[in-house]
């Protein structure tokens, strides 16, 4: 009963934060709203017993991405330009997509249903054999690093590519100050 109440309050706060982020025009406040949204999402993940995911969400969503958004706002200015186009067509598209997604959830198994396909495939094998095969108490780590090592290598390659992309586009070179050029060379 208590957990349902906490879930409802958290989901309501998520909705309020999202609507506030859309309606605000001060981008600094929007970045803060995104940070709060990520923090609430991290709390949701803790309630769903996904501690590793909550950890990532709290570190990346609340910390790093907020700082990066603030750094970008520092470059582009903190106020949104007034919008000139009508938003009726996008609204209709969003409502139609949302309705389709909600219709899709009707066929999904209930949360925590042990008969759900996701709990019937390889998951029982991993959970049963992980302590014997890898000797690790944290089954999340043994799946990510050992059973699904290829996936994690691919994810790391994605992060590597993102870093190389930023380096190629923006670079890390110091901008030369006027008057101080040539002295370093």
């Amino acid at each position, binding site marked *: 009963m208590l957990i349902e109440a906490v879930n409802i309050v958290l989901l309501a706060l998520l909705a309020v934060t999202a609507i506030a982020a859309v309606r605000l025009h001060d981008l600094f406040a929007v970045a803060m709203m995104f940070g709060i949204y990520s923090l609430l999402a991290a709390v949701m993940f803790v309630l769903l017993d996904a501690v590793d995911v909550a*950890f990532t969400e709290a570190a990346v969503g609340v910390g*790093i991405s907020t700082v990066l958004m603030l750094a970008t706002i520092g*470059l582009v200015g903190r106020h949104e330009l007034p919008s000139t186009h009508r938003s009726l067509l996008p609204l209709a598209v969003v409502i139609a997509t949302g309705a389709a997604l909600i219709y899709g959830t009707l066929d999904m198994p209930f949360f925590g249903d042990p008969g759900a396909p996701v709990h019937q495939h390889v998951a029982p094998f991993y959970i049963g054999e992980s302590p014997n095969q890898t000797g*690790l108490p944290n089954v999340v780590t043994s799946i990510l*690093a*050992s059973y699904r090592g290829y996936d*994690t290598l691919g994810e790391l390659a994605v992060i*590597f590519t993102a870093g190389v992309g930023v380096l190629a586009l923006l670079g*890390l070179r110091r901008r030369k100050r006027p008057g101080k050029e040539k002295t370093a060379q």
Partner: protein
Amino acid sequence: MIDNPVLRIIAKIIIPMILLFALYVQFHGDFGPGGGFQAGVIFAAGFILYGLVFGTESLRSAVPPGVLRLLIAVGLLLFAGVGVITMLAGSDYLAYNALSEDPIAGQHLGILVVEFGVGITVSAVMITIFLAFAGRNDP
């Protein structure tokens, strides 16, 4: 560079704790929540806080861009290299059992090294992205 003494002193106190916590998350990921990705992000967060409070110029001298560029590749190569070593040991790519006589010890070693590679690349990429964005604002 921010001339607020409270911020500067608090940052000096908590940055070592952030880095220590990141190392804990890195090497304790086998036993508790966490792992290379989370540890890398937390480690980078410590450096980014340093850059925010003391200026990107100080951060640049603490971690030179050349070192960052190198570390981005080192982490990924460490991960991929473990796979090559297991192949040289006569097993499949990334089959850690081949790393040691005892399969469980091999798994332990393989996962530890692989997670360390993840941590290195993730933290180097995060610091790089921060420096690339924030550093553009410097005069």
